[in-house]
């Protein structure tokens, strides 16, 4: 039985509670609420395979982004560099552990956890295998998702570049470029995993076990 063509039957709009029949979507269709314009669901035939591929690439880039120099400063011969984890860690040295934990969570930990879980969940769905951990993993993904600030951090990097360029020479490291591509891929992976379609597949897998 081909489960790819089974759709969630009805969905209620998250903003205005109107019910819609979303059982007849074609590949690439996006369904929106006709009452308030809210997003309902998007159907892409091989979305889970795509999401796994993008998420793996993003995770590799994040690992690279964490292990190479991010930026190097040069002030009349005095060098100073930083890596991505140092952005969070240096705050501990200034006795701001709470801020340090938040920054680390928003830009590294939450994105990394979400990616690992997305690879596991979307992978299991793509392979049509059922596991007991699918439900808790799904809950965690859709709870954590909104707490990543990857793209905000990236804009922050650009702003600090301008701030620093007045006082010292700045050189972008390999990790900067890795993180730039990572933030793009991360957004693709997270938006590619459609909530309604994803949970429908989890339900299907648990029923056909």
């Amino acid at each position, binding site marked *: 039985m081909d489960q790819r063509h089974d759709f969630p039957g009805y969905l209620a709009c998250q903003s205005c*509670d109107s019910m*819609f029949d979303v059982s007849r979507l074609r590949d690439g269709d996006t369904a929106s609420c006709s009452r308030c314009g809210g997003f309902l669901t998007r159907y892409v035939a091989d979305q889970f395979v795509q999401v796994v591929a993008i998420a793996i690439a993003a995770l590799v880039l994040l690992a690279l982004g964490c292990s190479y120099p991010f930026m190097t400063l040069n002030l009349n011969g005095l060098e100073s560099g930083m890596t991505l984890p140092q952005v969070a860690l240096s705050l501990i040295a200034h006795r701001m552990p709470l801020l340090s934990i938040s920054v680390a969570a928003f830009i590294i930990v939450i994105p990394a956890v979400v990616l690992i879980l997305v690879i596991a969940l979307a992978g299991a769905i793509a392979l049509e295998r059922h596991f007991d951990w699918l439900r808790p993993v799904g809950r965690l993904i859709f709870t954590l998702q909104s707490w990543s600030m990857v793209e905000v951090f990236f804009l922050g990097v650009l702003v600090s570049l301008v701030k620093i360029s007045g006082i010292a020479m700045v050189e972008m490291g390999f990790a900067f470029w890795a993180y730039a591509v990572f933030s793009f891929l991360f957004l693709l992976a997270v938006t590619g995993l459609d909530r309604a379609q994803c949970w429908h597949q989890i339900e299907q897998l648990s029923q056909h076990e």
Partner: protein
Amino acid sequence: MSNGFNTASSRGLACCHLCLKLVRQDSHLCPRCGTAVHQRKANSLERTLALIVTASLLYIPANLLPIMITTSLGEVTESTIIGGVLLLVDMGSIAIALVIFFASVVIPLTKMAVIYYLCWSVKRGRLGTARQRTLLYRMVEFIGKWSMIDVFVVAILVALINWSGLLMVRPGPAALAFAGVVILSMIAAESFDPRLMWDLEPPAEQPNKKPVERPVVKFVVKPDVKPGQEFESE
């Protein structure tokens, strides 16, 4: 609560906020994902207001205390959020000054004002249609996290500029306060339930016009929604 459109609540259904499954209103846990089910977000107004009031209070120290402390050859300069913006204007980076000004002043203030207004609009009268206010809500939900830029900029400068004795940047207490403002107002926006605004809509206000259709967007609207067997109440 039925106003022309078939709402889930008018059919005795509740929507799981995590997995979007439609379940009977008397269910406690979603059968699909196991999350607690509420017809509307629990104590939405009270929670939202409590969080946004806390965020507003925190916004005061976030602006009065220094966000960044620079030590240059023994000379200590403390700068507040506004001070940083003015410094950037002095440096001639108007564009960056605007980015920071928007992220740290305009967005959080607008966000707090909009959330107060939305809470008030559910309780009292209303200006504008529910659709317009929903749009306002979505905008606020989307831009909220961008306020975090200034905190990230401080974290980056602290990590980079660290030549003790010569030039050093330390984070100020306002950085923590401001991060608190952003986090609290994000949770506040998440606690607000826009469906409360639609529940008040009189049937006459319901838009009968055909929705704007974009080529990639396909609306599948059946006027007579017949729930499947699993929804049938006793």
